[in-house]
């Protein structure tokens, strides 16, 4: 076992390698799949000239390796290319939308993370009693519902019937004041919170239970420590790393939830942009968005990894 710095460096290098392979996968996935791309985009009624033009634009005639290197070079220098359908600069379109998406995800996380940890602790404290059981029953329900189902139910009840919040995010303007912005995304935030809450709570519960069942917790109890001291001095230091792990994994999951929720509430974010351009078969946009989502996802997973290495006493204090 090497020193902690070298283990960390190794993990980061591995993450970068993974990103590189993912870029390859996304590129290959959109290039080498069967079917004539130009035909797919333009449909059966396309004229031969239009097809030829599009093929030229797509660069289908150039060797794939060259096109990949071009694309990768663009990615590394921060140039995502131009959209096929609108001719718009992708950087510009994504920049604005990414900010919107992160704004939405940020607020969902701010609510979901503390709530999940609190409820997870509650479930541990009242293990196998009614708070625990009702929490796990709710978990089962929300895990079984796709994001859009929760979205429409809440939209219908809170937005349309009760009229508490704006039912859709159509009116969202990034330059409006915070309260107006929050009103238009209140229901989406709630939906995202519910979606990740269940997983996060379940995993927090499992992680803390795992620690609470260790023999050293028994030792602490047999020292006559109060319940509070047992938890704060012995359980807590060992729970930080698994809980942070849980949070990171679920934030990564949030990234996926965002895509659907944005479509449900017509919120001008990355997810809606991606889905829109999948339908239009605008490959450069899809590649760029896919790469950004994958990067965020891998990044969060990497952080989870690094935290658990940093928290491992065996690695922090080698023999």
């Amino acid at each position, binding site marked *: 076992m090497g020193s902690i710095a070298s283990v960390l460096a190794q993990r980061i290098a591995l993450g970068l390698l993974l990103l590189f392979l993912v870029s390859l996968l996304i590129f290959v996935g959109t290039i080498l799949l069967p079917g004539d791309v130009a035909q797919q985009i333009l449909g059966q009624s396309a004229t031969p000239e239009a097809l030829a033009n599009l093929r030229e634009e797509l660069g289908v005639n150039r060797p794939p390796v060259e096109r990949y290197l071009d694309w990768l070079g663009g990615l590394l220098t921060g140039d995502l290319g131009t959209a096929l359908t609108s001719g718009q600069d992708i950087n510009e379109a994504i920049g604005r939308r990414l900010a919107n998406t992160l704004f939405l995800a940020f607020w969902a996380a701010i609510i979901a993370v503390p709530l999940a940890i609190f409820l997870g602790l509650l479930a541990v404290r009242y293990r196998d009693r009614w708070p625990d059981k009702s929490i796990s029953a709710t978990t089962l329900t929300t895990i079984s519902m796709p994001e859009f189902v929760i979205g429409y139910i809440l939209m219908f009840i809170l937005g349309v019937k009760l009229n508490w919040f704006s039912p859709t995010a159509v009116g969202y303007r990034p330059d409006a004041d915070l309260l107006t912005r929050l009103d238009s995304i209140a229901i989406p935030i709630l939906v995202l919170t519910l979606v990740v809450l269940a997983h996060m709570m379940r995993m927090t519960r499992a992680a803390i239970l795992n620690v609470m069942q260790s023999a050293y917790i028994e*030792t*602490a109890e047999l*020292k*006559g420590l*109060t319940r509070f001291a047992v938890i704060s001095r012995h359980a807590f230091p060992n729970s930080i790393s698994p809980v942070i792990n849980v949070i990171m994994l679920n934030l990564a999951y949030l990234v996926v939830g965002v895509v659907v929720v944005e479509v449900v509430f017509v919120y001008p974010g990355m997810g809606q942009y991606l889905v829109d351009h999948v339908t239009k078969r605008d490959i450069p946009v899809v590649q760029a968005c896919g790469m950004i989502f994958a990067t965020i996802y891998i990044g969060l997973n990497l952080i989870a990894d690094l935290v658990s290495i940093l928290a491992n*006493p065996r690695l922090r204090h080698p023999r």
Partner: protein
Amino acid sequence: MTEPLVRVRDLRIGATVYPPNEKPHDIEIVHGVDFDLESGRVLGLIGESGAGKSTIGLATLAFGRGGIKITGGEVWVNGRDILQTSRTDVRSLRGGEVSYVSQSAAASFNPAKKILDQVVEASVRYGKFSRSEAESRAVDLFEQLGLPEPETIGNRYPHQVSGGQLQRCMTALALCPQPQLVIFDEPTTALDVTTQIDVLAAIKKAIHETGVAAVYITHDLAVVAQVSDAIMVLRLGDMVEYGTTQQIINSPKQEYTKALVSVRSIEHPENTPTDEPILRCIDITASYPRTKLDVLTDVNVEIHAGQTLAVVGESGSGKSTLARVITGLLPPRIGRLVFDGQELTPDLASRSREDLRQLQMIYQMADVAMNPRHTVGTIIGRPVEFYFGLKGEEKRQRVIDLLDEIEMGIDFIDRYPAELSGGQKQRVCIARALAAKPKLIICDEVTSALDPLVADGILRLLLDLQRIENVAYLFITHDIATVRAIADSIAVMYQGRVQRYGGKSKVLSPPYDDYTDLLLSSVPEMRLGWLEDVLENRQMESAGN
């Protein structure tokens, strides 16, 4: 008469069990136990697994592990019934009056905190000592317990010290708040035999010097005989016998206690080697794939037909690796195997079915050595079918004969492993090995997971079968008593090499090399004063320090 430190009356303990496909229900696991313990005295609690000894020990801390609940009786400590007292009082009892040393110190220390912080925690929390007083007390205890660098060892993290050292740190943790009673729950069971003796001596010295009272829990009567003043024998939650150590060891009254005292008294006269050995290991040197380190170096041993070679050593000595080399799971780097006069190919895949049949194996953990989804009939019947092509009624008859040989009846044939006791499981594994009619069976620690009386039964069975079937055993064990009981010849292994090899009488008589002396002398003997005798006459320090 003054009140004893601890007075336990009619202690009853229950637990909730969750059998699959049944409603959970409560059972009683300790059925009314009484004892007294005076200040400064040591009581040994002894019994096999399921006797309830740990549960009783923890009850003196008003603690039930898992779903265990104290359902009745009285436990008086320092003049109050701790089962009736307030929660705050129970905490101060645990913090200062009674403390606990568990079997696995490695799991019982918090991995994220320094040893010293954990050792002094209870004393400081309960204001018995100031932080600096407690720390200097801890250093004194570290020294008393024979730990190296007592001044600084506390600044290490639990994973940075060895198992034997950590067990002593745990004892220091228990003694630091100056308790009146310490519960030692199998504190040396997980340790190697040569380490066990040092930890045992350290604990005994600490008990003596601090004048603390102790309850010492173990399954090994020979161990408890060294430290305790009185012994209580328990079986399935009932008290069997209770008396002074002198009386229990020298003149037990109950049949069960007599059996425990006379355990490992099997006599097996040594056979002289025959001309042609059944297996010769020649110059075996082996290492695991992708490692440079040799785990076995230059091993040369022979096994003779119908006889037993015991390979004895501590964990890491390479004895199990030798079994893997012989079975072909780990082809040796250098050296060869000659079986019944024929060269044996080094790797499993290239051996013929006949070669495989001649060489069978029995494992330490019978539970995982049998497929839980196969019945006893299938488990024993498979080699019968596989090697001899027997089917239907013929196969069934052979299985019944084999069940008979292992002293189990025909009604076991349709049972699953989960429905058998530990000893029965190991018997079925023996029958599976015998079913192949092998010339050699490798027995890898086959009795070490079993309770002493059950283990005795298995050893007797193996000896009987050897006489009937004329099968040779390669018997791998860490337990010298087992070796004495079963071996014809012995190989003592240390750090991957054969340290001493020859007939049983030769290996077990002086003059010894230093390691063999250490190993042999470390095995607890069932007599009073053994520990002191050994410590005086030793030539080599054990490795676990």
